[in-house]
């Protein structure tokens, strides 16, 4: 492990890599400030920039984006009461009241430092937990990989869509799309319609950009209303001074945030909004002054923001160790890793140790850049909110085109991007969610090839899939979570109908 870190240090501490991480963090912060632009979309848009970069530099840039977007959602949440990202919803509870009291700079300073501590702590958790999990996963055979992919799909389907059934449908659509192209075992063309570009299957990048960026642009175009202008902040923010002492004084809230984020993070599909709400609730319970929460209390901001960034490292654990992303942003990041030629999963730690430890360190460095850039550029980021939507829509589409065309100069991929954009738009609009589709696209080939390879190995016998201990454990957990989600949905419906009747 130590050798890995030494190799990683050499890869990260190069001028170009540090610049790329800083650039990614800066752009991530800008994206996070703009309500509606998610960190998944930010990563998808930045992917083309990373094509020509070495893996650690490229992934470092994307991690910087993830880190920046995760932290900067607090800026509009505090200044305008508009959460920049879903995970910043809870930041508005205390951030905006504090800003209204004329302490916007203090609120931002607390949010920035808490995000920093959360991010650094999550990097420690990531680097401690990911290697043993990956080592354990080395025991996986075809049956285990098949069950793992089913497990990953079921979990994300159960939380991503508004209903379990719809989430499953979205995941299955991804699975079906992954069958397009030449069959991995028999070499038969499937659903290619004579189109050469489809022989190798659907490229991940056009699908990613379509599902996460184009679909959002289509939504923005649909909802475009010139009369609803984004307000500029009435609060005076000269410079957000980092509040290290005050953040540490709220150590209880900080610890609660870090623990909540680290625990919720690795749970596939749980997401930042859950982690931050759990952290806020727990911080209030543990507080000696719970009555102050919701009225501009520093501990509220600290708990939420530390949880938001602590979650990111946790979410990277299953992504890097097992190749199973937990939510949308890490799913896009996984796509980025694959485009970079880095195949996440247990073998990653064996074969590309330097790269993986370089990625851990890059994430740590990204947190430092986030702290510095957020403190220095706060006034600029507030102004980003004033960029007119109509120009932003055009610019995003142009970036999408460069990203997709830049891969191999194939115009057909632009049509694929548009098709996935349209699909993503309707899936989001009608409550299916887009994250399961991308996960289906990634996991589909793993599931199919391992199922067929497994059956070949076992001579057509299905029972090893249900009798091998690790394989059956994944299937049982997946089934258990399915049952739990169905039960929760049933309870929610019962409560809804009961409240509707009264």
């Amino acid at each position, binding site marked *: 492990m130590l050798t890995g870190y030494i190799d990683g240090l050499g890869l990260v501490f190069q001028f170009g890599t540090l610049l790329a991480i800083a650039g990614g963090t800066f752009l991530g912060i800008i994206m996070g400030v703009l309500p509606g632009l998610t960190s998944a979309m930010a990563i998808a848009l930045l992917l*083309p*920039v990373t*094509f*020509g970069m070495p893996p650690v530099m490229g992934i470092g840039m994307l991690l910087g984006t993830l880190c920046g977007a995760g932290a900067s959602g607090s800026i509009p949440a505090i200044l305008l009461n508009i959460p920049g990202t879903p995970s910043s919803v809870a930041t508005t509870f205390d951030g905006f009241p504090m800003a209204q009291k004329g302490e916007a700079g203090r609120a931002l300073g607390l949010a920035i430092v808490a995000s920093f501590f959360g991010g650094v702590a999550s990097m420690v958790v990531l680097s401690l937990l990911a290697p043993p999990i990956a080592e354990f996963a080395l025991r996986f055979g075809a049956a285990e990989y098949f069950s793992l992919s089913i497990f990953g799909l079921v979990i994300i389907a159960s939380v991503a869509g508004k209903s379990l*059934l*719809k989430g*499953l*449908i979205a995941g*299955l*659509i991804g*699975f*079906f799309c992954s*069958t397009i192209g030449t*069959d991995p*075992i*028999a070499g*038969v063309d*499937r*659903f290619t319609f004579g189109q050469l570009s489809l022989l190798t299957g659907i490229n991940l990048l056009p699908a990613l950009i379509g599902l996460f960026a*184009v679909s959002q*642009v*289509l939504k923005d*175009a*649909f*909802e*475009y*209303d*010139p009369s609803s202008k984004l307000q500029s902040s009435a609060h005076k923010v000269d410079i957000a001074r980092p509040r290290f002492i005050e953040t540490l004084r709220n150590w209880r809230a900080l610890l609660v945030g870090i623990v909540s984020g680290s625990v919720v993070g690795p749970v596939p599909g749980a997401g930042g909004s859950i982690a931050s709400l759990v952290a806020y609730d727990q911080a209030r319970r543990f507080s000696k002054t719970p009555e102050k929460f919701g009225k501009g209390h520093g501990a509220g901001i600290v708990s939420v923001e530390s949880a938001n960034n602590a979650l990111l490292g946790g979410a990277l654990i299953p992504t890097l160790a097992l190749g199973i992303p937990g939510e949308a942003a890490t799913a896009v990041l996984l796509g980025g890793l694959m485009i970079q030629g880095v195949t996440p999963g247990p073998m990653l730690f064996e074969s590309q140790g330097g790269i993986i430890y370089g990625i851990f360190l890059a994430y740590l460095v990204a947190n430092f850049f986030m702290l510095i850039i957020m403190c220095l550029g706060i006034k600029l980021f507030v102004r980003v909110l004033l960029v007119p939507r*109509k*120009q932003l*829509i*055009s*610019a995003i*589409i*142009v*970036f999408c*085109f*460069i990203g997709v*065309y*830049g891969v191999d*100069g194939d*115009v057909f991929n*632009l*049509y694929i991007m*548009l098709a996935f*954009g*349209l699909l993503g738009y*309707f899936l989001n*609009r*009608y409550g299916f969610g887009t994250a399961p589709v991308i996960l289906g696209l990634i996991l589909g080939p793993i599931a*199919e090839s391992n*199922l*067929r390879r*497994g*059956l*070949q*190995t*076992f*001579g*057509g016998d299905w029972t090893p899939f249900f009798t091998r201990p690790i394989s059956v454990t994944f299937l049982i957990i997946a089934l258990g979570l399915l049952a739990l989600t169905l039960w929760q949905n049933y309870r929610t419906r019962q409560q809804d109908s009961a409240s509707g009747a009264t």
Partner: protein
Amino acid sequence: MAKDIGKPIFDLFLVVASAIGFYMATTLPAVSMAGGLTPATFPKLISGLIFVCAVPCLIRDYYEWLAARRMRGEKTAPNATPSKQGILQWLTIVALIIVYINFFERLGYIVSTAIFCFLNVVCLVMTSGEFQKLSNRRKLRNLAAYTVFAFALSLVIYYVFTELFNIPLPD
């Protein structure tokens, strides 16, 4: 409650698309492999599952839509159906993207992108009614600003990506 008729229509689309997918999978060559699974098995299984999951969604969303319609009488709520302006804006941008794709290589990156950006902004301000509210002088000034924006954006991006990141773009 589902108030948007688009919901059951989209479910119906999924039902039909999965049925077509299943049918197309049955036409794939049945290359027999050890273990018994052919290249058609997985797509058939997946499209079949989509069909099985989409049918209850269709029934539920349709009845929820009907119930919501009945509750509000013949007229649905103002937010029940998408606004005409929204649909127009949406269709315009989809059409522009298709045109942009078609002319991306033919006109080259700079020209096609500048035209797309200009038309996109103009179409949005026209369809949203933003433009009609302006005085003639302001209209001209804004048009000039949109033109500058379109060309500046395409030029800057072209040079950044081709020179800095070595990403080839059509000339």
